[in-house]
């Protein structure tokens, strides 16, 4: 580190922008296109189909509801013109009209009740159905998809997008009503008086034209508000999830400023959107005013000239007040539909993620009595095209044997174990478990026979016992305790406030890393599988505890096959065979003594395990260099 270039630059002295962002990059953004995409509608329709009866009922109900709405001004008109002439003889007509009115509003009440309950319930169901469809699909999609997809993004589909589908369903039923109302009003006005009707309706095209100009920029503004919302929220979520790292690296100040930028952009976008939304208010009010003025002047003159009943004029005024409502709500529903299409698109995207790793048509269940052998035959595999991570690997693990995988970091050990479980499919070659190609086995049966302790211990919110038992719900408390004792977790579990029933915080945050690892180790033991894969299962555990575990496991693992990955070579000294990987290639294999005699990579790694840098001769360091010419 030369002092010249290494000025302390934690403050922004150079005026350069910081290399920092908050919130993740989202390359894929809101697809915001047509309000109607037949493909998506068909897709979503398949989820609505089970409820088509209810949807039909609510459509009928909404029609009835709309008709009663339309009828009310007509009834008023009739009452005025035929029931209230001043000669007093019309009281009975008025009473009849009132009776009709009462019946209408009862029907209106019933229709609105039926419509809203059915559509509300169906929409809720649709929401939950879609969510479940996605969630259960995600249980099957390949891990390579999950690896590159942020949890947050999937969560927003599982939560946000399903909501807009719910909204969509409610809205579409309502828009049926609105369309009928609109045409109904037009029809009734023309029917009541053609000339006055036409004159009054002439304001409608103006509104359409205004809307036409208004919509494109308004849409952009609304989308902007929506997008900046999700970016700001993404940044907030990141800040919450990574808060420990933020504090430890003292990034609060920088993050705050970056977040402030996003929040402020969000504020501006919202204000802009509000401007666009509100500018329509006076326009609609003006047009309503013009229409009413027309009725007053033209209609009034006609009434004066006795060319029109006064009741018709009153009815006109009533209709005009309601006239712009359906137009307004239809345009609003238009954007709901657009949003729904975008959401539908994203939902379909999730539902359409191909399930690459599927049970073959003739897949057989791996039986419990299989021998437990594992074999790699010329396996080549990688995550990205043309970048193989494992190259032509072949080895065989006999039943009951314990084989260790060692090698520099990034050499492909974890990847190899993932293949045993068929997390991914190989590019070339074969992985055999119990003598069967894993692609010919059902995944569930394979999963039952291969238990893994993963390199990252992941625990669920819940009690200790729930975590150890996990999906083996039939495992007894004794089984759980036995497993915990075998891995030496029993003592610390008993010291927790409620023993095995103590609640673990999110991801086991109230335990130490080693303790978490012990629990996930115990979880693998309870799974009681024929093959046990331990990927750095004791990396965060001291050798003494590890030795106790190994002793306890001797009996537990009798007759089981073990695949062990470890960097601490003492961990694997009991292995029957050691396979050394480097850069995805298998470079050596044999037992400890054979490999030591060979003086190859293993011997070098082994020696380094027991020296420290002060006394490594420089040649050794140099000689070690190719080891981790890190992949």
């Amino acid at each position, binding site marked *: 580190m030369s002092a010249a270039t290494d000025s302390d*630059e*934690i403050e922004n002295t150079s005026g350069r922008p910081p290399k920092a962002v908050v919130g993740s990059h989202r390359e894929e953004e809101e697809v915001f296109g047509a309000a109607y995409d037949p493909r998506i509608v068909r897709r979503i329709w398949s989820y609505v189909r089970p409820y088509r009866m209810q949807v039909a009922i609510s459509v009928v109900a909404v029609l009835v509801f709309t008709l009663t709405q339309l009828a009310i001004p007509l009834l*008023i008109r009739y009452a005025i013109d035929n029931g209230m002439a001043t000669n007093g003889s019309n009281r009975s007509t008025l009473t009849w009209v*009132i009776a009709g009115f009462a019946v209408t509003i009862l029907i209106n009440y019933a229709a609105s009740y039926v419509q809203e309950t059915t559509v509300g319930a169906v929409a809720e169901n649709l929401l939950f159905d879609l969510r479940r469809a996605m969630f259960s699909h995600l249980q099957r999609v390949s891990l390579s998809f999950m690896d590159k997809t942020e949890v947050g993004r999937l969560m927003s589909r599982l939560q946000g997008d399903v909501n807009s589908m719910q909204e969509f369903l409610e809205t579409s039923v309502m828009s049926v009503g609105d369309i009928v109302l609109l045409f109904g009003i037009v029809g009734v006005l023309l029917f009541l008086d053609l000339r006055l009707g036409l004159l009054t309706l002439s304001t409608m095209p103006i509104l359409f034209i205004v809307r036409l100009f208004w919509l494109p920029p308004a849409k952009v503004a609304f989308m902007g508000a929506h997008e900046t919302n999700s970016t700001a929220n993404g940044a907030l979520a990141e800040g919450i999830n990574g*808060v420990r790292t933020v504090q*430890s690296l003292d990034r609060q100040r920088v993050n705050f400023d970056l977040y402030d930028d996003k929040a402020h952009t969000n*504020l501006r976008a919202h204000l802009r959107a509000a401007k666009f939304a509100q500018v329509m208010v006076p326009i609609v009010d003006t047009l309503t005013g013009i229409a009413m003025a027309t009725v007053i002047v033209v209609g009034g003159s006609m009434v004066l000239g*006795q060319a029109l009943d006064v009741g018709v004029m009153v009815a006109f005024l009533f209709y005009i007040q309601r006239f712009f409502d359906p137009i307004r709500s239809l345009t609003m529903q238009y954007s709901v539909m657009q949003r729904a299409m975008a959401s539908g698109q994203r939902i379909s995207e999730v539902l359409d993620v191909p399930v690459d790793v599927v049970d073959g048509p003739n897949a057989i269940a791996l039986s419990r009595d299989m021998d437990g052998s594992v074999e790699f035959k010329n396996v080549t595999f990688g995550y990205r095209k043309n970048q193989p991570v494992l190259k032509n690997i072949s080895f065989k693990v006999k039943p009951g044997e314990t084989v260790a995988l060692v090698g520099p970091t990034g050499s492909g050990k974890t990847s190899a174990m993932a293949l045993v479980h068929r997390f991914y499919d190989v590019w070339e070659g074969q992985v055999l478990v119990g003598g069967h190609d894993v692609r010919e086995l059902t995944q569930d049966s394979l999963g039952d026979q291969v238990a893994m302790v993963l390199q990252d211990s992941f625990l669920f919110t819940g009690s200790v016992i729930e975590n150890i038992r996990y999906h083996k719900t039939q495992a007894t408390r004794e089984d759980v305790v036995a497993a915990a004792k075998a891995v030496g977790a029993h003592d610390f579990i008993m010291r927790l406030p409620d023993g095995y029933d103590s609640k673990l915080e999110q991801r086991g945050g109230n335990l130490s890393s080693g303790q978490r690892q012990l629990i996930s180790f115990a979880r693998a033991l309870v799974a009681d599988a024929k093959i046990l894969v331990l990927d750095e299962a004791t990396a965060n555990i001291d050798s003494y505890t590890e*030795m106790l575990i190994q002793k306890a496991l001797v009996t537990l693992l009798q007759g089981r096959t073990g695949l062990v990955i470890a960097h601490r070579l003492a961990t694997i000294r009991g292995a029957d065979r050691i396979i050394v990987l480097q850069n995805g290639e298998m470079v050596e294999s044999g037992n400890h003594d054979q490999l030591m005699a060979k003086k190859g990579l293993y011997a070098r790694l082994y020696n380094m395990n027991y020296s420290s840098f002060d006394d490594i001769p420089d040649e050794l360091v140099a000689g070690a260099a190719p080891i981790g010419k890190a992949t």
Partner: protein
Amino acid sequence: MSSEKAESAKGRATSFAKISGRRSSPAKTSLEHAADAQWGRGLSTFVRISRLTLRHPWQVAITIVSTFIAATLQLFIPRLLGRAVDQAHGVVSGGSGGAAAQNALWVTAITLLVVSILRGLFTMSQNYYGESVGHRTGYELRLAFYEKIQRLSFSFHDKVHTGDLITLGMLDLEGVRMFFSTGLVRVVLLSVLVGVGAYLLISTDLVLGLLSLSFVPFVAWRSSVTNISLRLTWNTLQERLSVLSRVMEENLGGIRVVRAFAAQEHELSKFDHSSAEALELAHKRVNIRVSNTSAMNFSFLAAMCLVLWVGGNKVIDGEISVGTLASFLTFMTILQMPVRQLGLMVNSFARASSCGTRLFELLDLELPIKDAPDAKDLVVTDGTLRFDNVSFTYEGAGHPTLSGVSFEARRGETVGIVGPPGSGKSTLVHLLPRFYDVDGGSITIDGQDISKATLQSLRRAVGLVQQDSFLFTTSIENNIAYGNPWAREQRIERAAESAQLHNYIAGLPAGYGTIVGERGVSLSGGQRQRLSIARSLVLKPAVMIFDDSTAAIDAGTEQRIRSAMKRFAKDRVNLVISHRLSSLMHADQILFVEDGRIVERGTHEELLAMGGRYRALYDLQVRPGDEPLQTAEAS
């Protein structure tokens, strides 16, 4: 009402109170009681929200004035319409001559047009400024929330689920933000419409006036009750949905575990269980909501029916004109919307109350760890670190996590720490950057107690590679520069080189620009650890801590990392926690921690000679095949 439901609603409402150490009232059994509690506490919340709102006095004033004018103008419309009807109708009932009536109609029409336009403009201004105040308040709250969250100490974050915090920062904040435009402004609007409107109507015709307003109290009562109950079930629903999202989130985050155990069915049944619970409540809410809207609608129409009937008879009797009746009826249509919105207004109050209480509770939390009033910047001179009889216990833990820990280290020295899982090693080093404060004893750097130093200077002086590396979803470069975003490229590359990661990164198609995923899924375990080592190497702390940060790295790579860091290590105190003894055998001092105490200490040779626990570990690692058990048990 099941008590479980009320429990959970309450649980959420009070969880922050518990954390801040305040006691909440004993368990309530019904939703009503929960409501009482919330209303009681709500008062000061409203005061606070109003005060926040008033930070934008001009906009608030414009909004209120606009609302007032718009509502008043709106009241003119029914009158004008009624007058027009009478003017037109006048001839039939033997009124004035044609031309005069025509003119009168024109005047009314133009007045109406002007009133409509003005009403539109003022409504626009009311809505726009109302929203503007809301968004501005929301912006301020957001920043306050973000800042608070970033500063709250580990002990807070240990207990609160991240999902709940996210809900608080999004939904609850929204509830507070919307209060002005959906709550306060509506109060003004409604009081003008109903108050002035009632006066106008009743002064025109007492009976008809009362009849036209007859639906108001019913609707007001119904919708308030409904909305309060919707609000309360909303809290419960929120609670259930948060369980559901936790199930989903943990499933997706722990997808490898799920797959490894072929536990998809199990996970689906967990999902179905929480989903069914949420759905049931959602259905219930739909029913509450719907029966309310239909009833409100009905009562409105029924009132209209009565007005028409009674009014019709009055017209027949010649007591009022058709125009007056029409104006009553139009007035009712105008009133219908805002009265219905009364429910929303009540909802807005209830929402602001519960959301605001939660939000303010969080914003009000005392930072347990903050700069002391007389805090000074830490001045590192010799770089001597001293733990003096330090003890510490996690909140809620039954027994001390650390007790009587003392040691000292000077610049250039390395202290190795070993011990069984859960012995307190990570806890010990987490006290140094003050993630937690010591319960007893003291930690000093160059004689300055760290609790008297400013947090910023302290945390800059302490570099920590955490046991679990959290990587941000951004480029590798940004991740390495996380602690020092202004670091130059060479510095970043050098850090990556020292961490033995440069070659790997350089081989990636996008190099340093490669985006690494959430918790770094697409990197191998060792690559992730090396990335977080590199992250610390761009800093120049006085104390550098490696918490088991080479566990997933092979010995060869680790050797090279350490030899690359040799010069780096010379300028600071190094604390190295490791289970691999080769990593720390040349430390100047090795501490063996067990049950929160230092049970052995010394150099490698001294500890070996001592023949205790360390010796047992050593034998296990160095002499494969031997039986070191006796030695270990002897200790």
